[in-house]
């Protein structure tokens, strides 16, 4: 599990490093006023990601040089909670930590399906538009998770009505798809 975490962290850091490197190199050619902010921020990001990447690859050496003990929320929680209290605490406000990713969750296919379905949904929007793609997405999602017939009908209808409500309410012409243009 530790290895899997490190792999995903390293992947994320490498992604940020590559993006920042490109932005740094590209910014050199900008006029000075336009270049200052991207150069400043990309160089800070590059320095920090380099340290973090190295600390991922050589944790024994780097962990002693980087003090990570800063989390006030962690320390207070530790003081005030016990194992019983922690049982059912879902996380929000983006503060959940590695303990919440158990081994089984790391190999959970649900997030993968959700991401693929979402990509599929966005892919369908172009040819079919929001009015058709949305109920298809909701229906497929509902079928995959064996929702009851009532729930399936409800979410499909809601996903069909939602674009109408929001489009009419906001006065926005939602995309109707190349097939129906």
């Amino acid at each position: 599990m530790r290895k899997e975490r490190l792999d995903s962290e390293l992947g994320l850091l490498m992604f940020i490093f590559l993006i920042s490197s490109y932005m740094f190199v590209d910014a050199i050619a900008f006029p000075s006023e336009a270049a200052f902010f991207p150069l400043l921020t990309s160089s800070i990001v590059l320095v920090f990601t380099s340290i973090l990447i190295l600390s991922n690859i050589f944790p024994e050496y780097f962990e002693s040089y980087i003090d990570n003990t800063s989390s006030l929320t962690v320390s207070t929680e530790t003081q005030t909670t016990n194992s019983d209290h922690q049982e059912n605490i879902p996380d929000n406000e983006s503060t959940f930590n590695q303990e919440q990713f158990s081994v089984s969750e790391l190999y959970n296919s649900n997030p993968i399906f959700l991401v693929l379905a979402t990509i599929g949904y966005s892919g369908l929007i172009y040819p079919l538009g929001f009015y058709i793609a949305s109920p298809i997405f909701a229906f497929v999602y509902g079928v995959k998770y064996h929702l009851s017939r009532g729930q399936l009908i409800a979410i499909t209808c809601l996903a069909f009505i939602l674009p109408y409500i929001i489009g009419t309410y906001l006065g926005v012409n939602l995309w109707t798809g190349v097939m129906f243009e």
Partner: protein
Amino acid sequence: MIEAINLLLDVNLLVIILVGFFAGLVLGAIPGLGSIVGVAIAVPLTIFFEPHYALLLLVAIYEGGVYGSSITAILMNVPGNVGAAATTFDGYPMTRSGKAVDAITIGGIASGLGGALMAVSAILLVPLFSQIVLMFHLVDYFLIAFLGITLIARISEGSLLKGIMIGIFGFLITTIGMAETVGYQRYTFDSILLFDGLNYIAILLALFAITEMIKLSLGQESIAEEIGSLSGNRRRGFRTLAEDKILFIKSTLIGAGAGLVPGSGPALGSFLSYSEAVRSASDPDSFGEGNPKGLIAAESANTSAIVGALIPTITFGVPGSGVTAVILAALISHGITPGPVALTEHRSIIIAFFLVLIFTSFLIVILSQTVVPHLGRIATIDVNVIIPMVIVATFIGTYSIRTNWIDLITLIIFGILGFYMVKNDFSIIAFVLGVVLGPIVETYYLRSITLSDNVFQLLTQGPVTPILFLVVLFFLFEPLIRGLYNTMGTR
């Protein structure tokens, strides 16, 4: 003040606030959702509203969400979000011991009065905030944004380096598109889709709606089970709260103080006041077994922290929590830049913010005595019904902002990126702050540099600037220096 009251004397607005509050209440009661998803989805849907309609609706959703998460915390031991986790410690044991009605009464009144008390204090302090912000120069706001990111990185879980790096990466992302101050296209690949850059509301929705749904999909069933009939005594609950007035006031102040800390939000407030209640109690062993004092401490701090979190958001543009980061984005998108502009030109809207909090706080008190005991079953909703609806609403809302396809691609990329950020303890709030404040920070810097001959003159403009600069340097490099110092000490 009169102008703020006049703003609220609008039937349509009151209806919107009520709808927002109840929507927040329902979303807050659903474990894993919380007010943040509600507020995030509402931002694009309210982009065409009058600013005060949009912003007051968001505040109402926020307050409703915070209280909604407490209901299921008390009745089912399932807090809607981490801010209500401390409520479960004594709230749920009270329910189990047949005092559910007592707990709901105590929780509702402590929560409502705590929020109202701090909102009144905030209204009284608005003139003082206005005076304080006028002491700051443009370059100070540039430094405050950096300081905000370092402070958020300190409060959030994970390493400081990660927090600071991801916050500044947020700044970097905002340089994509036309640099308006200098009229130059950056990183657009000559594509018209990228001409206006990445939309920060699309990024917010990706991080707070898509990422949250991916997280929610990890646990596929409804977390809570149906609750049975409730027992207890409302009058006894009220009496218990009246006997602990000092604890209530102390916890309210702790909550508001903790809310002021960037990135902390109601979670830190409720945990801190709960620990203080345990520390100062004559019977600390009874906490965690249904001691009403624990519930009073957690709940009064929970809502007062909302007020605390809004203050740095409005005055300096440094959000006190994830939800206030979204509210900050909404403020900016409606042309209300935090700082002097917000507190002088839009003072009536800012006061109306706090008036709405007073109004919704009293709603909490009333609802806790009437319908709330029946709302616990919201937590039993199957998450698979919610996930596709949130995704569809997010896509439509995002597309509506500027009908740009790049925003839908942004949703997917940053939704996945956000999931890995959270999984590896990178502070999403720091990243959001970077994304929201990036363009403003760059403008502040460019404007202030044109007013100064050199960097030294820039940093010695007034008494605040050099101090802020040193504080930013300290917080930025302190983890490295401390690490090096510790390593040298052990050798």
